[in-house]
């Protein structure tokens, strides 16, 4: 169950000047989370709603000119987990047996669970990928902040994002240095050197945190992060959210 985070992902792609990219981050958060909520709350009997969700996502991707390859590369983190669910299908009991694999029966119920989980996970993951591909992380954080997420959390998130690359790069170099000194753990019990390395990294991180604070003070920081221009919703934002809701909600209600 390990998914290490590949930092090659993340960050806007596609046509950075597209209408989707230029939308207010709040509109994209609301719109794409709405697609996820509709998709996730839809039962398999109303599968046509999933198709509608997929079409909406495809339209967003097309309008933002987000290449399919990027969506595939970033969304495939979810694939191993869907495969795990698939592996457990034969263990579902009850329901009509539609196929037998040796001693294991595959029931209709099991297949329905798999189909449902795969569809919902795809819709949710692709929504998140499209949000990230059309919106910079700082913009997402600003959007969340305006949507009443506590300021302490958005501030931590902003610093986290800024220093993630710096610290991940330090970690990568430290791991290379370990490997080049013939460190090749074969079991979890030999992982202690990783712990020591983590401490060295933490102490570096800690003193960096202190130096950052000094640098902030030196430029007049007095406990309040200065605010930039307020985000302003435009008509395009209302249209974006409106179109998504008008497409999906009625269908969801009648299905």
């Amino acid at each position, binding site marked *: 169950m390990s998914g290490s985070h590949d930092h090659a992902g993340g960050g806007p792609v596609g046509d950075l000047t597209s209408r989707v990219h230029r939308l207010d981050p709040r509109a994209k958060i609301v719109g794409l989370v709405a697609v996820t909520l509709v998709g996730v709350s839809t039962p398999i009997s109303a599968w046509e709603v999933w198709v509608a969700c997929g079409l909406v996502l495809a339209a967003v991707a097309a309008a933002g000119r987000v290449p399919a390859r990027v969506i595939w590369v970033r969304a495939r983190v979810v694939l191993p987990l869907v495969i795990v*669910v698939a592996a457990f299908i034969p263990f579902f009991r009850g329901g009509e047996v539609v196929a037998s694999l040796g001693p294991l029966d595959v029931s209709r119920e099991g297949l329905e669970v798999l189909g449902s989980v795969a569809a919902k996970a795809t819709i949710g993951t692709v929504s998140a990928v499209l949000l990230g591909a059309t919106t910079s992380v700082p913009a997402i954080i600003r959007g969340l902040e305006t949507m009443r997420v506590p300021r302490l959390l958005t501030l931590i998130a902003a610093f986290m*994002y800024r220093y993630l690359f710096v610290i991940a790069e330090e970690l990568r170099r430290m791991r290379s240095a370990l490997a080049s000194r013939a460190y090749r753990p074969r079991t979890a019990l030999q992982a202690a050197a990783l712990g020591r390395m983590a401490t060295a990294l933490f102490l570096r991180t800690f003193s960096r945190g202190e130096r950052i604070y000094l640098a902030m003070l030196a430029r007049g920081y007095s406990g309040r992060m200065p605010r930039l221009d307020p985000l302003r919703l435009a008509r395009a934002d209302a249209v974006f959210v409106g179109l998504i809701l008008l497409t999906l909600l009625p269908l969801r209600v009648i299905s």
Partner: protein
Amino acid sequence: MHIPDGFLDGSVAATMAVPAVAAVAYGVRRAGRTLDDSKVPLLGVTAAFIFAVQMLNFPVAGGTSGHLMGGALAAVLLGPWLACIVMAVVVAGQAFVFADGGITALGANIFNMGVVGALGVGLAMVLARRILPANRTVFLSVAGVGAWASVMLGALLASAQLGLSGTVPFATVLPAMLGVHALIGIGEAVITVAALSAVLATRPDLIDGAGFGPLSTAPLTPAAEVAS
């Protein structure tokens, strides 16, 4: 594991969001009272640190590998409530930036991978201080056992949530999940103990409070003083 969208039943997802939001909200309120503003960048870089160390892979049985979660480490270094906040930001960041873990499963993921470890290990530290002698061995043992237990508890909770949602058959999944995570937990414990013993050796002041961490107690050391 990061539970994606659609793996949890709506009611399970909503139920799990309650304790997650409660813990983080309480942490934020508490921080608002006790935290001075010099600590915000420190918390931010610590979150980046946790995010980064979650990339630390180590071998588990059969050619697979596990990675560090860091909840126990965060609990000891930051104290339980700040650890809750930092872990929540890390897990949310993974969902928003890397589509790893679903937005609708965010509550469950924050609870399983953050709150449980942070509060569980934090609580264990407080209890240990009350009833056990205060020394290095006890401290490291509690941290190690806590790290292992937090991984197991997280796996147990995730299995239960998936089982209750009808996504996987609970009785079949549980042994597999616990089996794998018993080994991943060993890696977590070994790394956590090694990391903390190194902190004890070099900067014991940082874990002075043994459970309430430096950020709420120790004064800021001016970087210049460290440098000279």
